[in-house]
């Protein structure tokens, strides 16, 4: 059987037609392959990457539907992280894993809040984070979150100054067992309460960093006053 699979795989580079010379392995076999790939990886693996490693013509997405079902209620679970899949131990069995527990660096209150703001408001600029927290965001806080790979730079905002934005990463989702940022707890309620809106302050509101010399804020204000 393994030989057949390997042979089928080799056709991958040669005959690129839709119907390959060798048929893709049966779905049960594809499920085994996904299982092996996910067990071997500590990091989530995307469908694309799985298919790149599997024989030509495989449908990893379909195989994953079967695999996920197979592991329901088991000691390990098949979880979706963004566009990728991973196997993780069932959270109710965490008590068994004292040996494996990793001491995570204790995050400061500022870092936790900043992280939450990025997660719920993403993509969000530094100025917006500061506006929400009412205090300037220290460089160290952002650096720490970047270093932990829980946040990354998103696209620049198409506003004057083209400020960078921050978004959360796949590592963040993986760490908190989230399939996507849409699954953040209470996201819907926050949205319906209007608390995720970017509501510009009415004129003459004090801005973060007014006491300091922050050029960006100065610009924002002067613009505001000109209007």
């Amino acid at each position, binding site marked *: 059987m393994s030989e057949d699979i390997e042979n089928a795989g080799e056709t991958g580079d040669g005959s690129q037609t839709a119907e390959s010379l060798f048929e893709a392995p049966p779905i049960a076999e594809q499920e085994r392959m996904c299982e092996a790939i996910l*067990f*071997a*990886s*500590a*990091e989530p693996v995307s469908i694309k990457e799985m298919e790149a*490693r599997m024989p030509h013509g495989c449908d990893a997405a379909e195989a994953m539907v079967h695999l996920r079902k197979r592991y329901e209620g088991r000691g390990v*679970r098949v979880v979706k992280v963004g566009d990728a899949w*991973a*196997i*993780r*131990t*069932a*959270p109710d069995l*965490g008590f068994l*894993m004292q040996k*494996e*527990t*990793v001491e*995570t660096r204790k995050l400061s*209150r*500022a870092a*936790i*809040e900043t*992280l*939450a*703001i990025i*997660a*719920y408001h993403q993509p969000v600029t530094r100025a917006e984070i500061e506006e*929400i*927290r*009412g*205090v*300037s965001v220290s460089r160290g806080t952002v650096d720490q979150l970047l270093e932990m790979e829980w946040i990354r730079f998103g696209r620049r905002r198409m506003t004057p100054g083209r400020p960078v934005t921050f978004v959360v990463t796949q590592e963040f989702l*993986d*760490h*908190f*067992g*989230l399939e996507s940022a849409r699954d*953040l*707890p*209470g996201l819907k309620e*926050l949205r319906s*309460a209007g*608390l995720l809106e970017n*509501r510009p*302050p*009415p*004129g*003459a*509101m*004090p801005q*973060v*960093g*007014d*006491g*300091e010399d922050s050029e960006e804020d100065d610009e924002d204000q002067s613009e505001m006053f000109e209007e």
Partner: protein
Amino acid sequence: MAEDDFETETTVTSVSDRMAAEALIVDVDGFEGPLDALLTLSRTQKVDLRKVSVLQLAQQYLAFVDRAKQLRIELAADYLVMAAWLAFLKSRLLLPPDPEEEGPSGEELAAHLAFQLERLQAMREHAARLMARDQMGRDFFVRGVPEDVQRVKKVTYTATLLDLMQGYARIRTKDEFRPYVMDRDAVFTLEQALERMRPLIGFAGTWTDISTYLPEEFAGDPARIRSATASTFAASLELVKEGRAEIRQSETFAPIELRRKD
């Protein structure tokens, strides 16, 4: 600011509020900015943030700042900016609206402040909810022995027929240029030959092999001989055409001879 002023400022607040406000001052370094201080103060109102009395909050904050000043606690500039703004807001809220005045009303400003406080409070709560989730490495775990995926790097090289032909052309072109570029001094031009032969032909009364007209400096080197022979021959034909000479060859590859035409 005098103590009794403080009293009049805070007539609306209860004793427990004042105690809370004093506790806050002890803690002033623990605040993450004026908004955080306001949020903490608002808790003394024990109401839904949406129903918070911004006026009361402004008074509480101003009292808090005054108290900090009395205790000679250095407040960051941010706190003072907020205090100034809240004093301004307070006057707007208390005085009847001035129709001449531009800009947002006191109520609008107060509403936005309430929104900011509610939003900050919500983000705090949700940050807590986020951190309360099962976390990797604490509640659930990754594979203990991940297998490294061996990267097998295969490099294939390609070239097109055009690359091949251009490559060849490049080499051949280089060859073709070589004589012209490198051996320029080996070229005896038609002009040079004519210049040399015009005076000499006058002395050629008898048939003479044209090879004897080759310049001496062009002897020896085959390439130079070739060039000089060709140009001397061409120059001879030119002289014949001009009617100044006759040319003959007894048979193919036999010597070409030249003599003056009188």
